[in-house]
């Protein structure tokens, strides 16, 4: 357990600071509300209204999410290579270049077939 | 040359395949391709023959192994080895020359004969198929491959007899030929099974080499089964009834298959298997009896028929009876059986082609009573037919004289009472042959015209047939004239076959006869036959409608009640037996089988409900299966 103690201490400190900030703001700050202030974010894009019954997202979200996952997961092979880059040497480099090239082929397909376009 | 043996049956087989698969696309040139395949095969056969002539002694027997069909390496006592291999020896070379030679001529003849038939291409494909199967039959080096060819010629024969299947009679005839042949085929298959059990091989060499080691009873059984097979294919008593009806097929078919080649397969089978018959006198005796009965039977039938082709069919039956008789006589007869087979191949094919030519000119009329006086209108046909006639009745020096005379002599020299009976039968057969053949020639070519107008009132206009039909007839006539003399010179034919059939045993003629006196007696019998026919038909008027005739004539017209016998002795009891069997079968066996089938069907119907279509229930079955698998494999261990 000893090794985890600093983490716990750090966590406790962070939590304490967060609670202190919020509570002190609530207690000391002025309270003047208007419509803009009631939004979830005070600036930027207006959030999409939540549809009735849980609702459905357009398929575009699914597509983008899928593309993210599939390209993201390839990183899994890059990490070990990056960590052991020195000892893997040229062999590792060449293999990895081939791997990334293959991923680029998939990327090219997605791009040309309009997978990256939102509309 | 030796490596080309496979092409001999291969060429017609390719021809048949191209014509059958090509369909209507090959209509324009199909007949030419068919002829080319046959001629090519003949050329190869001739080449092989000359190659063989160039060799001596044992080297003459050539052998080609193509491949082994599913060999089962020696697990049991007898490893199952079914080879596709060809053997070309002195016997098979005679056959392939006859088959491809006569076959080619008949192919050419058919171009003219079938020229008006819309299905000519199909006809040629069947003819090619027949050639291929027949060549496989005679070239096979083992009984299994021989069986393939045997069934193949049966199939081709069935297809060709029923070629005009729109005619109910032709369809019925094809079916009859097929069914009767099956009886014989069963004999062959049983013989092959017996051989495999006894000798552990199908190979000719192995079977014949070890035949001496088998018991007499086994050999006799094999011999009798082979005889049954020969009876079926060669239309011998008691399986003769199909041949007459087979004349429903186109005439070239009758000439090629039902006169020259296929029907002689039985003779080939017996001569090829001589090693087995040599060791079983009982089987041989049966063979001679069958031959003698058939030769008389066929001749009598031939006397009474007014249909020219059916009369010739009776004659074929009778002549093959001679060959079977000769083959049954053993070493003194084998070579003569084959020699008669070859000469018969020439003259009978010629006679059939002549008959076909007559029919062609007479608007497909087959009744001889409606012919008459055709000599002047069809000189070539008459000439060739007459030469064939002289050959078949055994008039010296035509080919039939040499071969038939020898058979009669061999029959007498068998010795003992049986020798007298067989010889007498053969002699009587010669007399009757002379009678019915003379009758046929007179009724067809001589006398007054008895032509009958057809249904629309057109008089027939007999005319000579085209060259494509005339040429084969001429060539066959040459064979009919010369073959016998050539074969007999210095016993050339007998010596040629000696390595296959074994040395010929010289028989001794009984009772003060010698070969010259016997020849004279035979010629006298022939002369008597001719004389009776001339008196009966040549002088008076031949009635256009057959008179009632004596009871023998009536019986002979009905094929000596062959069909009636079959019907009474086999069909009726067979039907009765079938009905009884069907009854017990329905009640007993079928009850069980149907019950089982219903059980399976019911199980199936119930089980398929498990296939609910719900993916979750499939997953459940998989999960259960996985659990069961784990449990089973662990349980098996614990």
């Amino acid at each position, binding site marked *: 357990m000893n090794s985890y103690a600093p983490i716990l201490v750090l966590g406790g400190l962070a939590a304490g600071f967060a609670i202190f900030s919020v509570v002190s703001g609530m207690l000391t700050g002025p309270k003047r509300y208007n419509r803009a202030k009631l939004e979830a974010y005070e600036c930027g894009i207006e959030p999409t209204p939540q549809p009735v019954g849980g609702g459905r997202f357009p398929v575009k979200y699914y597509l983008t999410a899928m593309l993210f996952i599939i390209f993201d997961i390839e990183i*899994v*092979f890059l990490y070990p290579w990056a960590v052991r880059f020195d000892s893997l040497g040229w062999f590792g480099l060449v293999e990895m270049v081939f791997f990334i090239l293959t991923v680029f082929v998939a990327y090219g397909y997605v791009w040309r077939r309009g997978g990256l376009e939102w509309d | 040359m030796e490596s080309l043996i496979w092409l001999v049956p291969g060429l017609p087989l390719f021809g048949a395949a191209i014509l059958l698969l090509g369909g209507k696309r090959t209509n324009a040139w199909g007949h030419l391709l068919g002829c080319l395949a046959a001629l090519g095969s003949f050329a190869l056969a001739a080449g092989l023959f000359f190659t063989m002539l160039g060799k001596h002694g044992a080297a003459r027997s050539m052998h080609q192994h193509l491949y082994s069909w599913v060999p089962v390496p020696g697990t049991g006592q007898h490893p199952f080895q079914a080879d596709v291999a060809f053997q070309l020896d002195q016997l098979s070379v005679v056959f392939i020359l006859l088959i491809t030679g006569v076959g080619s001529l008949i192919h050419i003849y058919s171009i003219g004969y079938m020229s008006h038939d819309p299905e000519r291409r199909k006809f040629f494909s069947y003819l090619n198929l027949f050639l291929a199967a027949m060549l496989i039959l005679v070239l096979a080096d083992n009984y299994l491959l021989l069986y393939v060819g045997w069934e193949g010629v049966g199939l081709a024969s069935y297809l060709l007899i029923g070629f005009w299947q729109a005619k109910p009679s032709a369809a019925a005839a094809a079916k009859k030929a097929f069914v009767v042949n099956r009886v014989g085929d069963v004999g062959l298959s049983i013989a092959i099974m017996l051989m495999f059990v006894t000798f552990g091989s199908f190979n000719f060499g192995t079977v014949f080499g070890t035949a001496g080691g088998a018991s007499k009873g086994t050999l006799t059984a094999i011999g009798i089964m082979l005889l049954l097979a020969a009876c079926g294919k060669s239309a011998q008593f008691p399986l003769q009834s199909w041949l007459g009806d087979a004349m429903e097929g186109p005439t070239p078919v009758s000439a090629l298959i039902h006169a020259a080649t296929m029907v002689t397969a039985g003779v080939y089978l017996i001569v090829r298997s001589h090693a087995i018959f040599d060791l079983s006198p009982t089987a041989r005796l049966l063979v001679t009896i069958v031959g003698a009965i058939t030769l008389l039977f066929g001749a009598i039938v031939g006397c009474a028929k007014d249909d020219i082709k059916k009369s010739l069919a009776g004659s074929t039956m009778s002549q093959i009876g001679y060959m079977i008789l000769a083959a049954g006589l053993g070493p003194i007869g084998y070579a003569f059986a084959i020699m008669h087979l070859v000469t018969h191949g020439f003259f009978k094919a010629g006679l059939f082609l002549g008959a076909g030519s007559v029919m062609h000119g007479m608007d497909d009329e087959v009744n001889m009573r409606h012919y008459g006086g055709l000599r002047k209108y069809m000189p070539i046909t008459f000439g060739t037919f007459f030469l064939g006639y002289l050959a078949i009745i055994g008039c010296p020096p035509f080919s039939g004289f040499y071969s038939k005379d020898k058979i009669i002599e061999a029959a007498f020299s068998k010795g003992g009472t049986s020798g007298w009976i067989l010889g007498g039968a053969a002699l009587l057969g010669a007399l009757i042959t002379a009678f019915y053949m003379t009758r046929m020639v007179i009724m067809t070519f001589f006398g007054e015209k008895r032509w009958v107008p057809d249904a629309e009132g057109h008089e027939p206009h007999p005319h000579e047939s085209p060259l494509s039909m005339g040429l084969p007839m001429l060539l066959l006539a040459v064979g009919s004239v010369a073959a016998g003399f050539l074969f007999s010179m210095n016993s050339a034919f007998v010596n040629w076959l000696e390595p296959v059939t074994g040395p010929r045993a010289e028989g001794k003629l009984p009772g003060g006869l010698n070969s010259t006196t016997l020849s004279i007696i035979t010629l006298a019998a022939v002369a008597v036959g001719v004389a009776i026919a001339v008196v009966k038909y040549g002088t008076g008027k031949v009635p256009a409608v057959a008179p009632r005739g004596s009871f023998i004539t009536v019986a002979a017209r009905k094929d000596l009640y062959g069909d009636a016998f079959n019907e009474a002795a086999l069909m009726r009891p067979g039907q009765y037996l079938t009905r009884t069997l069907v009854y017990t079968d329905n009640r007993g066996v079928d009850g069980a089988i149907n019950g089982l089938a219903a059980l399976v069907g019911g199980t199936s119907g119930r089980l398929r409900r498990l296939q609910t279509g719900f993916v979750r229930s499939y997953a459940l079955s998989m999960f259960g299966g996985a659990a069961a698998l784990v449990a089973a494999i662990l349980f098996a261990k614990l």
Partner: protein
Amino acid sequence: MNPDNYLFLSALLFTIGAFGVLIRRNAIVVFMCVELMLNAVNLTLVTFSRMHGDLTGQVIAFFTMVVAAAEVVVGLAIIVSVFRTRRSASVDDANLLKY
């Protein structure tokens, strides 16, 4: 901590996933349950890897993750197209092929 416990946990997760496949109707959820099974296996692999002191197990886990991601893409494509046709993602509604 005893590594056995990880094995038990992963076996438990695997079973939960398998039962989820058997009892859930929504195709997406069924599929997520399959993913749960795969991840349970990952846990097993990593545990064994630790116990053997051998990296192979962890490498296999990497591969499994990638394969699972590819499976997600393919699976969701199929499920979405089925959903768009039938307006339902229930596996029990897809029941035309049977017997």
